[in-house]
């Protein structure tokens, strides 16, 4: 998952970057409104965290312009003026949720995950597709009730595919969302990772959870459980 953090306070920005990366996100940062708007328009993001009180372009304006530019990824706002007027304005401008400063990092993380889940059409933190259950909070996988150990990158790919189960996701998109800009883009790496993922999830080759659509990308093929 690729997240953009737009925050002018350097220490806060750095800690957010570090801890989000620790939590498995690919993090882009911007120091002011204009940088934020540029990054928000140019990078293939899954979600953005935008502080309302930004130098340059105000946070509200950044959100508004991103929405005008048809950027549909969820946006979480950070506000230090914890009043409803700001929250309402932010949400009306196109944000999806807010967190008041100072916050617990865990709260920001929980909100981000909820937003991502919601964007993929999931209502609960547990993504269930038949026998495959992914818990976005605990970052664990179970297949037919049995825990499966995954590496960080394997988990990230699976989470990405499952959040948008049923959609076709290109290799480029996976690469972009999972790695920083300067990471060497070698689609073979993705192929290798998907291959390992398939073997771990479906050692008997009965479920076929991940389809390859030649020239287009991958799709998580197991149907979502109706209850979730």
């Amino acid at each position, binding site marked *: 998952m690729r997240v953009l953090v737009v925050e002018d306070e350097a*220490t806060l920005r750095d*800690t957010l970057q570090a801890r989000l990366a620790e939590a498995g996100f690919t993090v882009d940062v911007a120091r002011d409104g204009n940088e934020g708007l540029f990054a928000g328009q140019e990078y293939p993001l899954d979600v953005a965290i935008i502080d309302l009180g930004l130098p340059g372009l105000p946070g509200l304006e950044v959100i508004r312009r991103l929405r005008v530019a048809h950027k549909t990824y969820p946006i979480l706002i950070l506000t230090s003026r914890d009043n409803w007027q700001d929250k309402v304005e932010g*949400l009306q401008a196109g944000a999806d949720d807010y967190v008041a400063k100072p*916050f617990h*990092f865990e*709260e920001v993380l929980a909100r981000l995950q909820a937003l991502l889940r*919601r964007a993929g059409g999931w209502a609960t933190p547990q993504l269930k597709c038949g026998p495959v259950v992914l818990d976005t909070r605990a970052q664990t996988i179970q297949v037919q009730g049995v825990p499966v150990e995954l590496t960080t990158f394997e988990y990230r790919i699976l989470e990405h595919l499952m959040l948008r189960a049923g959609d076709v996701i290109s290799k480029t998109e996976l690469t972009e969302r999972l790695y920083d800009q300067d990471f060497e883009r070698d689609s073979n790496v993705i192929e290798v990772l998907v291959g390992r993922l398939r073997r771990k999830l479906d050692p008997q080759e009965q479920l076929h959870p991940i389809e390859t659509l030649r020239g287009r990308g991958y799709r998580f093929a197991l149907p979502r459980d109706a209850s979730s």
Partner: protein
Amino acid sequence: MHSLSRRLLVSVSVPLALFFGVMMWVLDTGFRALSERSLQELLDSQMVSLIASAEPQPDGSYAPTPQTLDPRLATPRSGFYAEVRSQQHLWRSPSTAGLAADFGALLTHGERNLVYASFGHEGVAIESRAIQFDEDPSGANALTFSVAVNLSPYEEQLWDFRQQLLGWFAGLMVLLLLTLAALLRWVLAPLRRMEREIRAVEEGRNDTLGRGYPRELSGVAVNLNALLVGERKRVARYRDTLGNLAHSLKTPLAVMRSSLPGAGSDAVLGAEIDRMRDIIEHQLKRAAASGGALLGQAPVEVAQVATDLRGALLRVYADKDLAIELAVAPTAQFVGDRGDLMELLGNLLDNACKWCRSRVRLSAGADVTAGPRERLSLVIEDDGPGISAEDRARVLQRGERADESVPGHGLGLAMVHDTVDLYGGRLAIDTSAMGGARFSLRLPGL
């Protein structure tokens, strides 16, 4: 005496009435003296002609000859009467025919008088004079000549005069008072305009008083405007300062908070940071809540605020299958600060959204029978688990959390409590028919 114009009208009309009364008395007295003198003259001339026309008669009496008699004395009930009387003889003018005339007692020589009496129903003035002719030195044959005149024409004249006097004076007085009232209206019009404009400012239809007041009032208007603008600016600056203070305190706190490595070793530090945040949040919000409408501030439409909040909350709680019902009467208006209403409704609705299963309802209406500080009724209810009786009081305490697992729960409600107190309103918590908690608020309304 709460009206300037009434004061002025009363203070002018009392001396005016007194003046007119004295005038009437003086004129009336003068007129009466005048008419009495003319009556006297009439009686005197009648007397002279009666005495002149009196001739000794064969029977020894004295009487005017019919040829020389004033025709008015010859006509019955003409209003002019005469009598010549001695101890032996009596002559009365034919005009007294059929009249119970009594000219009074005989007078002795040289005596004369004027009396007012009545002949039957006829009021008369009688002048009598005793005369002794030289031919009868014994004095036994003294004659008393009397003439009488009917007074009713004089009285009628007097009444006419009085009536006219009264009519004119009353008319004049009414005219004067009306003129004065009209004048007052015109003179006091700027004051009334000022009153109207102040009311408009109070009700928030205008933000300042207009221009074009007369010189005596323009100073007041200008100063009042300056006061209004100054007060508004002062409050805005105060809030801005508080907001900036909160902002500049919270960002370093956020930095500290986020620099803490996950849960565990620095739990104490984390808890203290949270406490500081809560204190800043609570105290600054408390200080910034205005607790009253500023002059010139328009009443806030509850519907508008509620709709905005509903949209925002539906976005925030998008993954909860949530219905927020708004039953807000168009008459529901809050007399106070928009931000305060936003905080109140935001906190309560957010709280309801957190706890409900699927339904939240906001009802708002105006209760015109209630006092001005309780005219707006707001009810927020949900279908969640509700709040137990012992938690209700606790929930309203500062920072107390009924359920620690839902962050911010207690602080928001304590804030609501404080704000309602500031506005002199009321807050009650009980159980909704929908099953969950019901918060009923009374706030200043229109």
